[in-house]
């Protein structure tokens, strides 16, 4: 029996080991990090098979659930652990050739801690433990955003840190209230007891938690850190942050709202907030000339779309949202990774300088186009199916508000289409002679993009399988947690 705790502990142990290891073999830490990520992929895929027989529940230190800490590796946790480790592994491969400066051992240790923290966030079944992992994720992202140590990165990191700290302060107040009212920290136990407390404090707890997690999840008024942070981080880190870190915060938020606090009444608010976030993100992305900022704003837009789908309060909606998360994780990682070498080679962040880059870096440019088309939702790619599912799910609810929101989503899609096509057309036009560099990205950097591209292009082959997995995740989220089920 594979214990899901290995998914968290092994990257942690590897990160602790890296400073020692680097004393013995300088530069060997990247292989250690790769090994840890591979191990996680193996464990997560084995758990994905096992989890079909019901969620795997493990206690820590051998104490039963409400007293000790426990992990609940259901479909949600395992699917996310797999997404995190696969994207982490591919980005690690990319990092080996891309990240040259700075303190490499530290980079890989931070990278692994980010993976461990996000995995912990989705697996844990204890609200304070969630806070601890949340802090690990936040702090490692603060440091990684400032990894290049230019003034942009430092500013973005400080901004992120201040907003993130306010968020975690609110989160802690919520935890204090939970303990005051219910005397427990276990999510299943909270879910059992939440009905017994008065609605005012229940509301306060939920609002505080949503605000706290919403900073990391980039909900609309709290997302001012995101464009700066994602644009000034190294491209590999932007791929991680956009690829799964914000999604993890979002899915945890949604999971808490549905299955722990049963606060379905707040979902309408979240859906409207999601669409607002979408429109603001897409409009802002439209005006950007810096390619990374455009991608960062596009992430805000996508997050809004995902939040809209997740808060439709139907199983189909959550399934579509999960689908979109998978699509966004793959596509946005492609976009950030592909643009990473373009920026490095041309020395410019402005996409108008990339005229004709398709002649010099055909694979990267082609896959960039694939990722962009998939995010827009053009038919053969994965994004088409997820977007169609979202719209169908929203239409199926039959509420008038949702129809208006669908219209807004379509408007967002059109804007998204325009700016992505603008970038892609610039890349594919021209002869490439005005670009002075020679040689494309190295093979080690192209390989992960190709693999992710295969997921996006050939994803429809696995459509039935993806649907079954996403359906189980959706069923798990909608169902109320209960302590009695766990034993």
């Amino acid at each position: 029996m594979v214990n899901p705790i290995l998914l968290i502990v092994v990257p942690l142990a590897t990160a602790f080991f890296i400073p020692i290891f680097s004393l013995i073999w300088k530069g060997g830490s990247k292989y250690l990090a790769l090994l840890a990520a591979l191990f996680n992929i193996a464990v997560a895929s084995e758990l994905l098979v096992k989890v079909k027989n019901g969620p795997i529940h493990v206690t820590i230190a051998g104490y039963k659930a409400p007293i000790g800490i426990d992990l609940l590796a259901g479909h949600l946790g395992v699917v996310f652990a797999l997404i995190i480790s696969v994207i982490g592994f591919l980005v690690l491969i990319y990092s080996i050739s891309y990240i040259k400066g700075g303190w490499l051992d530290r980079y890989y240790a931070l990278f692994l801690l980010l993976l461990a923290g996000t995995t912990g966030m989705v697996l844990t079944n204890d609200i304070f433990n969630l806070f601890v992992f949340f802090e690990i994720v936040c702090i490692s992202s603060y440091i990684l955003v400032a990894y290049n140590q230019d003034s942009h990165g430092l500013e973005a990191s400080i901004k992120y840190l201040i907003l993130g700290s306010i968020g975690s302060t609110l989160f802690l107040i919520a935890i204090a209230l939970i303990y005051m009212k219910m005397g427990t920290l276990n999510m299943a136990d909270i879910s059992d007891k939440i009905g017994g407390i008065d609605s005012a404090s229940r509301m306060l707890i939920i609002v505080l938690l949503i605000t706290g997690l919403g900073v990391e999840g980039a909900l609309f008024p709290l997302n001012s850190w995101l464009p700066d942070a994602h644009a000034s981080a190294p491209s590999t880190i932007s791929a991680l942050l956009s690829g799964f870190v914000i999604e993890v915060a979002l899915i945890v938020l949604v999971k808490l709202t549905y299955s722990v606090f049963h606060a379905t009444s707040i979902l309408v608010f979240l859906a409207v907030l999601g669409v607002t976030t979408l429109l603001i993100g897409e409009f802002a992305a439209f005006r950007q000339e810096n390619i990374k900022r455009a991608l960062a704003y596009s992430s805000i837009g996508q997050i809004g779309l995902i939040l809209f789908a997740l808060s439709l309060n139907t199983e189909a909606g959550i399934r579509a949202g999960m689908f979109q998360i998978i699509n966004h994780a793959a596509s946005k990682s492609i976009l950030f990774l592909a643009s990473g070498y373009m920026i490095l080679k041309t020395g410019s962040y402005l996409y108008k300088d990339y005229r004709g880059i398709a002649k010099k870096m055909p694979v990267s440019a082609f896959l960039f186009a694939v990722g962009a088309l998939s995010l827009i939702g053009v038919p053969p790619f994965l994004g088409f199916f997820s977007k169609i599912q979202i719209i169908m799910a929203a239409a199926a609810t039959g509420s008038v508000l949702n129809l208006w929101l669908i219209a807004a989503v379509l408007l967002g899609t059109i804007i998204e289409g325009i700016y992505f096509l603008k970038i892609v057309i610039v890349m594919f036009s021209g002869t490439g002679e005005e670009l002075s560099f020679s040689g494309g990205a190295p093979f080690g950097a192209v390989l992960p993009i190709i693999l992710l591209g295969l997921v996006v292009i050939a994803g429809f082959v696995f459509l039935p399988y993806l649907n079954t997995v996403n359906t189980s995740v959706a069923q798990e989220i909608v169902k109320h947690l209960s302590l009695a089920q766990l034993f």
Partner: protein
Amino acid sequence: MHNILANLVSVEWIIYIASFGLILTGLFIVFTDKNLIKIIIGLDMAETGVNILIVAAGYIKGNTAPIFSKASLTPAQMTDPVPQALVLTSIVIGFGVTALALALVVRLYQKTGSLDVSKIRGLKW
């Protein structure tokens, strides 16, 4: 008279006022002050306030610390140990964040020569 006052000034009330006061003052400094180090001071204070709130969540009036130092002590005479353990964690996490924030500020100062939020380009929000 004395009795009313004593009820009014119960230890629980005082703790909650202290913690909310610290949280609100800290957040006020974060929102209004322009100096980065002052902002970090504000965050630190809000953090202290939250810690007091969490410990207060487990406080039972008149009970002793949850340490079995004498054989005569029974569990019913003790305060709740779990919030105290949580606060230990939260204090250490707060220290980590503060240290990191200060390091970032020092580095930013070396780059831009300013601690003023409104003078640093990207920090306006």
